[in-house]
């Protein structure tokens, strides 16, 4: 504290105050706010990380099983994949499929032939197998026309 900032004698003519001002109070306040902000930034950083591919893998993986049928309800040997996951599997001749190592969370399952596919939203839980039962694949006759 500089000489100019020193209290005058007038300020103490009634005696010393019961509680002396704490010169480090403002610094403590700033540090408190800093701590809160740091916690918020860490929380937001964590939320961003969990949205990333690496983050979703960290949350664990699950599996999915089901059976693909065509418009008539007959088994369909479709290609099956999850958007954002590299593996593509083929359903068995009876239409059944089982896919592992799918990142936990909201995912989109696609059943497809060589040119078109149908998307089904699924929720994968880490360490569990989701049985979605039958999923229908309807062949799109003409891409872009009249489906």
């Amino acid at each position, binding site marked *: *504290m*500089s000489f100019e900032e020193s209290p005058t004698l007038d300020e103490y003519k009634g005696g010393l105050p019961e509680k002396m001002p704490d010169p480090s109070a*403002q*610094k403590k306040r*700033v*540090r408190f*706010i*800093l701590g809160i*902000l*740091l916690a*918020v*930034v860490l929380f*937001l*950083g964590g*939320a*961003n990380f969990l*949205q990333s591919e690496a983050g979703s893998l960290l949350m664990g993986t699950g599996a999915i099983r089901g059976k693909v049928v065509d418009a008539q309800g007959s088994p369909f040997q479709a*290609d099956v*994949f999850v*958007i*954002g996951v*590299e593996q*593509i599997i083929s359903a068995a001749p009876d239409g059944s499929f089982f896919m592992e190592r799918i990142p936990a969370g909201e995912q*989109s399952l*696609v059943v*497809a*032939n*060589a*040119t*078109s*596919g*149908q*998307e089904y939203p699924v929720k994968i839980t880490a360490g569990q197998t989701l049985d979605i039962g039958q999923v229908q694949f*309807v062949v*799109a006759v*003409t*891409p*872009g*026309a*009249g*489906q």
Partner: protein
Amino acid sequence: MKKNHGQGLAEYAILLALIAVGIALILQLYGISVYEAYCSVADRVSGGKACQPDEICGDDFSSDLSGWTTLEGKPGNTLNGAYCPSSYTRVINKCSTNGSLEDYTVSLNGANLTSGWGYGLMFRAENTPNGMNGYVFQYDPGYSPGSFIFRKWVNGRELSVPFAVAKAPNYSWYNAPRDIEVVVDGNTFTAYVDGKAVLTATDSTYTSGGSGIRTWDSTLVCFDEFEMQSNP
């Protein structure tokens, strides 16, 4: 004393930095780029002059199609400054695949459909070993009763159910040159025809990729110009 004073300044600097990082993280969580947020504020202050769009890629079709890669079918030809693709093709602009372009505005000017089921303007598209991933805006008189639609492609397959449809049964689809534009902004896509918004949709599957053109079935169409710009 001087040491204490300096320490306070450092703490204020950290405080400001944490606030800045926090705001950036919040924007990222909601799919908004920091640059766009800056531009939206700066444009209001400067009267729209802060963030002018830059041309990223373009083709006026005055020469051949060497700037394009064919993904499917035969590409067709350029003639008298117009590109007339074959009736079944997918081509992607090479320039648009350089780097990982995220947000942009892509346009097809003077698009004149004379017959067939329509054409599409691809965006955030990339060719992977499994096939094309990306989106397509379709000018689609064949999608009953005539519609503007957004489709998604995954591993070379076109998902049969569009993720957005605007039906336009009484629209004049043929023999009128149209200016098609798609604004790709975060997870929101807005399609314009002749400057009028016809369809808006959101999807978060793909965050970057190039642009291209597709036709199907018996489509006969010609385009005067392809252009990609940064968003204003």
